[in-house]
């Protein structure tokens, strides 16, 4: 966080009735964002607009870039210089960021990219809901790499998960995606922002030696696989490249180096999945039908489960708060109980996350899909549960 | 609103012949931007008292301007809604071009 004088309160502690997009922006502020580079796109624009006003007032920097390619590269540059940085976009802009997401992963530059999902593909329905960028978040850039993605179901979670996303990005030096959706972004609800000193902040690991004292190896790692990060301007004479590189950050163009490096990038997330992952369980104890849902859809799902329970259907909800890492292990545990008979996966897409569920089980996985523009209603889901 | 002086003369205006125009309006297209009313070189137009289905006041002929249109075409081309145009008609007697004498 910058030391510049803060003319406004950075953490807006208190209870608010707040738009999801604004809650995300406030989460960015509370989470210590120093730099936002962005480009307007519906339905994420309100995040940028709020940060354009609020960030400079607390000593941070807002830059409206010429395009999304510039937006993400500018947050990576700021990150290299030590900033906690974030950008916000929607599907088309997210697609444009794909190349540089790979650079973030390869250089291990922490950053948070908010994708407020709308009905897609292409321009689609810009003002209406979608959840169809979920597999793109995982696979959209060329190659294998580590990342994490969270999907808030309420303005409160827009706040909470933005903070969490920033922490995860810094702790593991990975790109983290906040996969919002238009429903949650454009919904206003109560948001409780804790006192500034109660906002949980985790920062990136920093070199344990002074610059110049010894040669700094930007990519030397210990057991946790996460290198300590020196920033531009600190005297460490860092070098970073998107090429396959050695501990010095120098290009090292051999298959063995590449294999070790990329596996480490992926393992940073895989080995820490339990710390990064978040999910929420509702009525799962004796559930024969397990609904798996995330984002706005999980709201309809919860209501449907509640109603189905009232009618005696043994069903429950596994709400994914982190979409990636996907809670494979938890689902395997549920399966081991032997009580589960089927899964139901409602999504505002044509069945993306259900594919992950299908990998884990041969039990029936029932889909409830809408291609976009509207979310499944509780009634849509209830019909399947009964 | 004052008559505007566009930087150039109306396209078809010639000293020898001032055509007479008849103003046609498509009220349901109008959104009351005021361009035609504001920039008619002959101040031929005014806003209607009535509103269209969307609630907009559309152009009508201003008082005493029934014969003043010179069919210059400016209202037609500047209208963002393609809601107004003029048709040349045979010039009738009268003081219709008073506005151009300012």
């Amino acid at each position, binding site marked *: 966080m910058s030391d510049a004088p803060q003319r406004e309160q950075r953490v807006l502690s208190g209870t608010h009735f707040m738009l999801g997009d604004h809650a995300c922006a406030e989460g960015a502020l509370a989470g210590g964002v120093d730099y936002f580079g962005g*480009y*307007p*796109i*519906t339905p994420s*624009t309100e995040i*940028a*607009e709020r940060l*354009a*006003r609020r960030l400079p007032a607390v000593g941070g920097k*807002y830059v*409206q870039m*010429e*395009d*999304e390619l510039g937006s993400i590269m500018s947050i990576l540059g700021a990150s290299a210089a030590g900033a906690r940085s974030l950008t916000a976009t929607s599907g*088309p802009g997210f697609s444009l960021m794909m190349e540089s997401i790979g650079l973030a992963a390869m250089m291990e530059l922490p950053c948070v990219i908010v994708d407020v999902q709308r009905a897609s593909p*292409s*321009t689609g329905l810009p003002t209406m809901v979608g959840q169809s960028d979920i597999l793109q978040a995982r696979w959209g850039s060329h190659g294998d790499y580590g990342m994490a993605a969270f999907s808030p179901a309420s303005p409160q979670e827009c706040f909470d998960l933005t903070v969490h996303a920033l922490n995860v990005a810094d702790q593991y030096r990975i790109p983290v995606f906040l996969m919002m959706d238009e429903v949650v972004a454009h919904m206003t609800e109560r948001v409780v922002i804790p006192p500034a000193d109660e906002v949980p902040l985790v920062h990136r690991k920093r070199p344990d030696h002074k610059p110049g004292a010894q040669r700094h190896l930007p990519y030397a790692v210990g057991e946790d696989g996460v290198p300590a990060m020196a920033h531009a301007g600190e005297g460490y004479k860092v070098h970073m490249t998107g090429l396959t590189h050695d501990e010095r950050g120098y290009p090292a163009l051999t298959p063995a180096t590449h294999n070790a490096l990329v596996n480490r990038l992926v393992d940073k997330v895989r080995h820490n999945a339990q710390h990064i992952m978040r999910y929420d369980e509702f009525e799962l104890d004796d559930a024969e039908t397990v609904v798996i849902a995330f984002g706005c859809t999980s709201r309809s799902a919860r209501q449907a489960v509640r109603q189905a329970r009232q009618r005696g259907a043994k069903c429950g909800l596994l709400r994914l708060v982190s979409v990636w890492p996907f809670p494979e292990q938890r689902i395997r545990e549920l399966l081991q109980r032997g009580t589960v008979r089927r899964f139901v996966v409602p999504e505002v897409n044509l069945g993306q996350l259900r594919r992950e569920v299908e990998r884990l089980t041969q039990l029936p996985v029932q889909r409830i899909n809408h291609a976009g523009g509207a979310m499944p209603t509780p009634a849509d889901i209830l019909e399947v549960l009964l | *609103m004052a008559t*505007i*002086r*566009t*930087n*150039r003369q109306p*396209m078809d205006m010639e000293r020898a012949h001032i055509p007479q125009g*008849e*103003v*046609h*309006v*498509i*009220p*349901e*297209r109008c*959104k009351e*931007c*005021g*361009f035609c009313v*504001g*920039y008619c070189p002959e101040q031929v*137009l*005014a806003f*209607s*008292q009535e509103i269209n289905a*969307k609630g*907009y006041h559309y*152009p*009508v*002929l*201003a*008082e*005493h301007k*029934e014969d003043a249109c010179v069919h210059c075409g*400016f209202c037609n*081309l*500047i*209208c*963002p809604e*393609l*809601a107004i*145009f003029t*048709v040349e008609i045979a010039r009738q007697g009268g003081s219709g071009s008073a506005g151009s004498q300012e």
Partner: protein
Amino acid sequence: MTATSAVIARDHPNDPLLRSDRFPHILCPGCGIGTVIHCYVEAMAASGVPLDNHVCVSGIGCSGRAAGYVNVDSYHTAHGRAIPFALGIAIHKPELRVTVISGDGDLTAIGGNHFIHAARRNMNLTVVCINNFNYGMTGGQAGPTSPRGSITSTAPKGVHDRPFNLPDLARAAGASFVARWTILHVRQLRDAILRGLQKPGFSFIEALSPCPTNFGRANDLGDGMAEMEVYRQRCRIVQELPGFDELDIDFVDEERPIAVGNFVDIDRHPYQPVGADAFDNVPNGTQRVHHPVGEE
């Protein structure tokens, strides 16, 4: 005697040039995009090129909706990418006259690279940039043409960075015809587009337009007429491309003139794709040609 109704019409004589079943369009009252569309279809009809040989391509944004309203083959593409899409059409079917109509954000923010490269190549394209000084569709954010000091939803205390001088940028990139008019200068605007349609190579026409809902409301230009009045009072027609600063548009400094005109009109060999023929050493030099365009 009170005001009397004009003749009530159901159709406009230019309706066949438009997808009139989509009128009224979605654009706000006082927005000038409809006027530019109107100027384009009149220029198109006057161009001598058969209507079936006209193609209109747009990007995304309010101005990007233009392609959807003109009754020729028309493509409403992706944000910032109208020009390379148009290029593909123009290269594959050189007999077509392809016009790009889009907004300042679309063409010169996200689309800036395609813009300068199409100008550099001197592609056979007519590019009409409707400049309303902000991103209208998303609610009025600052863009690369927002004048210094203007208030936008992402520059609540005023834009700090200076805007592009689009005519100068287009010229420096290599355009053959460069003009700037406002939607108050409808005839000159139409005729500049017409010149663009008839001229080989890359033509660029900047059309200044009010955006009352967003830019206007935030900058004391609350309806379209207010901004039109600024144009009326401050525009000065010049014949040659003015100096860099003279082209700046500044709504804060009320004394500052806004330069409009057909600034550049030169002959330079238009783009050809990589050919089977050897490079023919066409002189690279350019010369200003004098056509009385838009200066009726």
